[in-house]
């Protein structure tokens, strides 16, 4: 695997030579070389934790490299801060947008580079400058200049970020996982935009772990694995299979596990559920849901469409405004988390850092989390720490938590190991239903497979399982049925093998497949399940 030869006379926009960066004992980047040619889109591909973001943070001046040199247009540069990188014409669009939510779009774009007039910010000059950038590249951001960023959808926020970089004079743009928060349709829009930027002479680095996007968007692809650059290939000359093997370092099978079980009795049911979110807005708007024994129900949707509130209403963390929740046929709408936990409704939370684990506790103390009223760990309000310690050791052993030491603080574990511990502990409740919210977000491939297999085992043992995810491949791999959530409603329910990613994407963007004569194929493939109440 060799990169295409660059023209010898034209120095590349960016060249990284032998970049090494360590955090304590962890080597995030190990002697990485990288070159970005002018007017091209270059993808940086790798698993989570492979060092992509670290490498780009070095280039952007957020981190100092331990070793190695950065060249911009052939000149060696040292960047002490992002300001230096910006001065060299480099802009970065972070995965977590660097926007100040209550401030307006205009204020965000000019932040740090405000035009002033007599000591005050010259908003008129700023507006004119932004409008001219927008008209040059066909952005629509200037329509929202006076809107606080928090009122914009994620796609628009991303364009604000890009305009911000352009306003600061960026020629080279780094986009860190830009598609993570977008619907498939928004992704397409973004890719078009990147094309336009390339056509205007900008050079772009596109960080991703999604093979299809990288193949669609990039001219060249560099694969990172465990902090090392594995190789660079032209996008036109490679395949998903080849890239996947470079990423993972072994052969990868894209096959799904065969399904054997047939669903049994309904375990958890919700009817006409309405739930209010944290900001007082109704986030779940009349959802009907049934999940049975021996069944995994997947819930797909772009983040923020009510999945979090729905799950919290089912776990008992969030009050139900209207509608009913039933467990084994009995109404439990008014019960709280404690009751439902003891009754056998287990929950793998969305955020393992703030919810699933107490970071400052060791694993023994964390093993008690959720078990505070559960015998034999607690009897009559008294904790039996010896039993809790045994339990923690069991989890660590059975779920292959590294390091295998229950005395370490939760904060010191990697994401995958934290998640395995949580999954182990929640399975330890011996529940009847398992609600899993983004169970593999940010975990390594090994842990991901492990957790997937466990969830499928649970299903095979007879549990009812609900999995919320924004990853289509995960939902496809696990689900017996997929309900698609959009703006607080289940707008459709489909069988995983009966739809394409594109169709799921359309659903997630709120477009119903039925009644769209332009896509007869889609209609034919939608498979209504008995008992599902997707569309009303």
């Amino acid at each position: 695997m060799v990169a295409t030869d660059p023209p010898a006379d034209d120095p590349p926009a960016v060249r990284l030579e032998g970049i090494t960066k360590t955090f304590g004992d962890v080597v995030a980047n190990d002697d990485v070389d990288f070159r970005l040619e002018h007017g091209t889109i270059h993808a940086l591909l790798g698993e989570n934790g492979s060092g992509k973001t670290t490498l780009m943070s070095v280039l952007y001046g957020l981190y100092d490299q331990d070793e190695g040199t950065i060249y911009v247009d052939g000149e060696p540069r040292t960047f002490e801060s992002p300001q230096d990188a910006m001065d060299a014409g480099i802009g970065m669009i972070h995965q977590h947008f660097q926007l100040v939510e209550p401030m307006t779009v205009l204020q965000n774009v000019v932040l740090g580079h405000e035009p002033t007039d007599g000591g005050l910010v010259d908003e008129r000059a700023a507006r004119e400058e932004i409008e001219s950038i927008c008209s040059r590249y066909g952005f629509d951001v200037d329509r929202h200049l006076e809107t606080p960023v928090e009122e914009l959808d994620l796609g628009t926020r991303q364009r604000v970020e890009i305009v911000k970089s352009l306003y600061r004079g960026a020629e080279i743009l780094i986009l860190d996982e830009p598609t993570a928060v977008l619907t498939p349709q928004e992704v397409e829009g973004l890719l078009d935009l990147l094309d336009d930027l390339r056509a205007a002479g900008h050079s772009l680095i596109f960080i991703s772990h999604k093979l299809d996007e990288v193949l669609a968007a990039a001219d060249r692809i560099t694969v990172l694995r465990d902090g090392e650059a594995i190789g660079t290939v032209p996008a036109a000359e490679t395949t998903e299979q080849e890239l996947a093997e470079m990423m993972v370092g072994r052969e990868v099978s894209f096959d799904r596990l065969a399904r054997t079980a047939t669903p049994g009795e309904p375990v958890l049911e919700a009817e006409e559920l309405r739930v209010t979110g944290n900001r007082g807005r109704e986030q779940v708007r009349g959802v009907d849901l049934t999940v049975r024994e021996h069944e995994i129900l997947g819930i797909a949707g772009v983040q923020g469409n009510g999945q979090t509130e729905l799950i919290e209403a089912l776990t008992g963390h969030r009050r139900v405004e209207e509608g009913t929740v039933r467990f084994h046929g009995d109404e439990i709408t008014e019960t709280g988390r404690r009751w439902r936990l003891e009754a056998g409704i287990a929950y793998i939370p969305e955020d393992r850092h703030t919810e699933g684990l107490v970071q400052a506790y060791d694993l023994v103390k964390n093993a008690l989390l959720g078990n505070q009223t559960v015998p034999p760990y607690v009897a009559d309000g008294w904790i039996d720490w010896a039993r809790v310690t045994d339990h923690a050791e069991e989890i660590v052993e059975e779920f292959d938590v590294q390091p295998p030491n229950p005395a370490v603080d939760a904060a010191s574990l990697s994401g995958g190991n934290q998640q395995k511990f949580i999954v182990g502990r929640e399975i330890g409740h011996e529940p009847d239903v398992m609600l899993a919210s983004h169970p593999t977000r940010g975990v390594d491939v090994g842990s991901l497979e492990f957790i997937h297999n466990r969830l499928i085992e649970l299903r095979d043992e007879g549990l009812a399982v609900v999995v919320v995810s924004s990853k289509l491949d995960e939902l496809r791999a696990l689900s017996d049925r997929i309900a698609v959530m959009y703006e607080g409603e289940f707008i459709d329910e489909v069988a995983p093998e009966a739809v394409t990613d594109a169709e799921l994407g359309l659903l997630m963007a709120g477009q119903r497949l039925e009644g769209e004569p332009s896509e007869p194929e889609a209609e034919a493939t939608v498979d209504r399940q008995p008992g599902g109440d997707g569309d009303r």
Partner: protein
Amino acid sequence: MSLATDSSQRRLQLGGLALIAVVAFAAVVTIWFDVALERILTVGFVNRTLMLASPIALAAVGGLYAEKSGVFNIGLEGFMIFGAITAAATLSLVGGTTQLHVWLAIVVAIGVSLALTAGYAVLLIRYKADQIVAGLAVWFMGLGFAPFLASLLWGTVRSPGLASMNRYSIPYLAEVPVVGPILFRQSPLVLVTIVLVVAAWVVLYRTRYGYWIQAAGENPTALDTAGVDVNRVRYATVLFSGAMAGLGGAVLLAHAGTFIGTGDTMVDGRGWIAIVAYLFGNYNPLGAALAALLFGGLEGLQVQFQTVDIAVSGRLMGLLPYVGVIVVLTIWGKTRMPASVGEPYESED
């Protein structure tokens, strides 16, 4: 600008309601005790309210700057105490009785507060001290060192009578009914307060520094990646908050003319009330000043009731502002704080 967002409009309406409620309360009291309302709501009352509100407003504006930038300066009360004792000590040491001496004392108080705040800011920002605990410590230090200094200087924790700030009086204009005595026969420190409050509003919402302050409190990384040193912004606001609280304490002393170091000292919770004032004012300097006016008015009522011989214990009436604070916090407790308040910011390395 999105100043007139829903929540701040609702706040204004409710604030108006609160004001009406206070007036109604006063009316009920007057009817109960059979005193004419105009004997309570006098020009003198308005003047006194403005004077009582000034120290609170000054400290509140300082505090909100710090919190907007992401540092909760809970030490306002302590810095007010230090401001008051410094001004009193200066007056006593230079032995002056002229207005110029009073101004000098105020300037010295600001300077000393700045110096103390500098150390505090380093502890908070560089050494990531717990902001709540450190702020409480400043209060405790004020409660200890101010009476200590007073004892050293005067042998007791109470100062003798010192020079105080006179009102200016503009001839003829001051004779205009109602408006005249309020605007043109007034303490210059009230005027200073008004100017500072308006200036603070302009800086916060209309200048780049204001943008930086807001960004530092909401999303420091965004500001950092925009090439602005977050901690430098925070140092500036914390220093400003200490200076403003010190000024507030000095103004309190300049109006009173005597330092009192017994119990909770003459500052007596005004720094805490200042925090509530800016929460109530939704972190807007103008709103904070209006809230300070409300608390000043509650305090002023006490004097009014005494002057018209209403037989309510002065000590109980003096509790009104504290009760007011609890009521305000209960109704408006869920203020939206800047997202990154209390989190030290560290850019890598």
